[in-house]
């Protein structure tokens, strides 16, 4: 690379060449075009799928406009989460304070939309003008009799990960507030699935076939009343560990609920996610059912995958996604398709994630934390990748350079989790990598 930012060197390692541990969890460097967003974004995306809550963004118009209907999270009932509410602060409020506007907005929205609870997100400006959002929320809680939960998620106040933490703390306030409901035996919570393209429905169905019940999903197809009784589950099954481990640990401390980290991408990880739960409940019957389920699904899936594998064998992939845990699953899923990962990185991975990635990947694979377009395009060129897996911001980089792209971000419309998802994944990778259009790029 002709000129890489000096401060970035420690966040890039090549397996087989660099023995040092990768640096991560750092704030982005000023002036680098980081693919990360902010604290507010972290909180907003985690809570977004809770469909019967009011989500009000306290700030000028931008933060709400850019996060309107941003995730492909489906709800089987209410659709309130898909509306974008903001106090739309103007200069007047910035000078004289926005508390009255916030109070009025909350009162009128709650009266009219009758949400089960409300989340109020602070944006950068709130932290500066000193609105007492917590006091306003307390007052509205008192007056309206629903939980109005402030999230002090000012954008400058850390990284996206800090936003996850704040969102988890908000969920934690709700959990345990329903003491009366009774949940059946063998009940779990699913943490860190956001029901993109209906993935949660697929996963919950697998668990149901094994005889496992779901109390709450946080937050895919989420409902406030389910979250209130989440403490009654016997186990938390955590995907997207980057965002939800805080909550899992919190519930372990408070309620003694153990948690396990799983991934639903690729058949190995998906199957493990089922077996691990059966093992946890120490039920032979459940394990038997899980095995049958896996056998049944694989007997359909594996022959169907062959066609794609034949065409994708030996192709090279670059991965850059939000969470590192997803990257790990993707490396394995690509392997199942005969593909090799040559670049892998994430916005928010931690040391353990990167160590695991290093173990898993082949020699010469570039591993990177908090990358930017210049680096990513350089890596892709160096390694001759045929496919890029990432989000919207990475798509034009891939396309401009003439390589296939698979959207694995929270805006996707294809279910990629589970067995059915693995087949969709193969189809999508195939449709991009094997398209005839690339011949014109030469």
């Amino acid at each position, binding site marked *: 690379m002709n*000129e890489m*930012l000096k401060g970035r060197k420690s966040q890039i390692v090549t397996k087989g060449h660099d023995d040092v541990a990768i640096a991560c969890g750092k*704030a*982005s460097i*000023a*002036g*680098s*075009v*980081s693919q*990360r967003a*902010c*604290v507010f*974004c972290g909180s907003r995306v985690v809570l977004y799928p809770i469909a019967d809550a009011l989500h009000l963004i306290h700030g*000028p*118009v*931008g*933060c*709400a*406009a*850019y*996060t*309107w*209907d941003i995730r492909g999270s489906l*709800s*089987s*009932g*209410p*659709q*309130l989460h898909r*509306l*974008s*509410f903001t106090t*739309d*602060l*103007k*200069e*007047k409020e*910035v000078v004289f304070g926005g508390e009255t506007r916030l109070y*009025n907005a909350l009162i*009128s*929205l709650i009266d009219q*939309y009758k949400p089960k609870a409300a989340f109020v997100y602070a944006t*950068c*400006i709130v*932290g500066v003008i000193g609105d007492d959002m917590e006091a306003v929320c307390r007052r509205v809680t008192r007056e309206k009799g629903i939980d109005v939960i402030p999230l002090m998620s000012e*954008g*400058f106040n850390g990284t996206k990960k800090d936003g996850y933490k704040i969102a988890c703390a908000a969920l934690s306030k709700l959990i345990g507030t329903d003491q009366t409901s009774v949940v059946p035996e063998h009940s779990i919570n699913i943490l860190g699935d956001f029901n993109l393209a209906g993935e949660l*429905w697929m996963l*919950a*169905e697998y668990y149901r076939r094994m005889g496992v019940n*779901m109390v709450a999903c946080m937050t895919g197809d989420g*409902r406030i009343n389910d979250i209130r009784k989440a403490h009654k589950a016997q186990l938390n099954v955590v995907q997207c560990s980057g965002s939800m481990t805080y909550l899992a640990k919190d519930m372990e401390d408070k309620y003694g609920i153990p948690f396990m980290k799983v991934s639903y991408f690729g058949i190995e990880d998906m199957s493990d996610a089922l077996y691990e739960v059966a093992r946890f409940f120490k039920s032979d019957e459940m394990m038997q059912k899980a095995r049958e389920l896996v056998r049944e699904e694989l007997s359909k899936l594996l022959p169907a995958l062959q066609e794609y594998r034949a065409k994708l064998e030996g192709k090279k992939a670059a991965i850059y996604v939000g969470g590192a845990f997803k990257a790990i699953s993707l490396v394995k899923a690509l392997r199942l398709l005969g593909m090799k990962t040559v670049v892998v990185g994430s916005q928010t991975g931690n040391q353990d994630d990167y160590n695991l990635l290093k173990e898993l990947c082949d020699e010469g694979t570039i591993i990177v934390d908090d990358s930017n*377009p*210049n680096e990513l395009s350089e890596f892709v*060129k160096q390694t001759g990748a045929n496919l890029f897996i990432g989000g*919207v911001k990475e*798509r*034009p*980089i891939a396309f*401009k350079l003439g390589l296939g792209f698979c959207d694995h971000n929270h805006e996707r419309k294809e279910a990629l989790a589970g067995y059915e998802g693995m087949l969709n994944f193969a189809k999508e990778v195939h449709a991009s990598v094997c398209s005839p259009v690339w011949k014109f790029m030469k």
Partner: protein
Amino acid sequence: MRNLELGIWNLKLKKNAMIENTPIIKSTPEYTATRNACKLCAPLGASVAFKGIRGCVPIIHGGQGCATYIRRYLISHYKEPVDIASSNFTEESTIFGGGANCLAAIENVISQYQPEVIGMATTCLSETIGDDVKFYIQNFKDLTDRETLPHFISASTPSYQGSHIDGFHEAVASAVKLIAEGGEKGEHLNIFPGFVSPEDLRQIKNILEDFTIPYILLPDYSETLDNPIWDSYHRIPEGGTPIESVRKCGSARASIELGTILNKGSLSGRVKNNALATTAAEYLLESFGVENHRMPLPLGVSNCDHFFETLSQLSGKEIPMKYTKERGRLIDSYVDGHKYVFGKRAVVYGEEDLVVALSAFLNEIGIEVALAASGGESGRLEDEIRKYCPENTSEITVQNGYDYEMIHEWCAENKPDILIGNSKAYYIARELGIPIVRCGFPIHDRIGGQRIKHLGYTGTQELFDQITNMLIASKQDSSAVGYKYM
């Protein structure tokens, strides 16, 4: 376990009987929340304008999220890499000032991109804590060892003042204020196109070239935000208005400024004075005596005629035959299609100047502008619409400061025949079964938003064909038998 089986069923059928549509809720006078905003924030507009200056890398002076969200929003529309750097505020910079971050951001952008120009846009955060970006830039210049430095343009774009359109014009005006120089009058014209599509910019350039008029188009993101394929990654895409051209704006024969509202509105909630909202062309008139011709976007026969006649008059050249023929074909098609569109009721929404131009066009073909709405709050939309829509003026409902939920309510009650504007009203169209013609910004659910042509006779032609065919299709689809001839 709630509706689980139903969930699976839904997934397979892709239709969901259980999905509860959020009720349409009548907004009340004391309502203070914006619901599905029909506008964006100022730094987005400034970033687009900066992208239209050659070799320019925008830096947003604020939190990391601002740059990332804006990039994502623009990328989804333009389907192009859009690099925008951030000075990446932390809690510390918020308390002690963003100077250090600003300087680091400039240094890092220079070392990564070697830009010709750095365009700095401020945010609500940096403006509120009182950061003085011009001072930081001077600081940087004083402290750096670098021998060659980029040009700096800085625009004040707090998101609590106006909308993305104010940010756009503020950035263009800042570029001219900082760079333009006077001098002996040349033959060239300045064209300030406003926030239009890359295809529109190409169209304007073609027209000027066919007229053989020398011109400066500012900004010009016709290439930077609509690139061909690349052999290798371009850190800065090719194209854009060169800085030398911006310098020459002060010695132009005249300026043509497209759009009549621009950033001239009252800027609701603004405490600072309105003098801040000078446009580039106004500045050039005041400072260098460059005469200014302000007119609506050339969309529709009347407004196109105005544009072409002004070009002809300023250059002393005949309108090229090509355009006379385009005009003739457009009017011929108006005749062919007039019955299918007459009396239909349209809702037009989006940026104010586009809403004015679209309304004028619809008005001249006999479509009733039932509602003209914008999230912009200039307070001038109504006057401009009445001015440029001479037919049945009194029947047009005009709304400044509207959001999509207000448009939603209005449509549910008034049942218009067609929606015309950006892709964000799709959910309204879908729920109420009203056809929608997508144009303007953003187009997030289709490809080709950057290639939509709105301007000139051919741009109008494309919109006319689309709108007419959409109305024909909607009648054909709902007919009991369907038919093979119209």
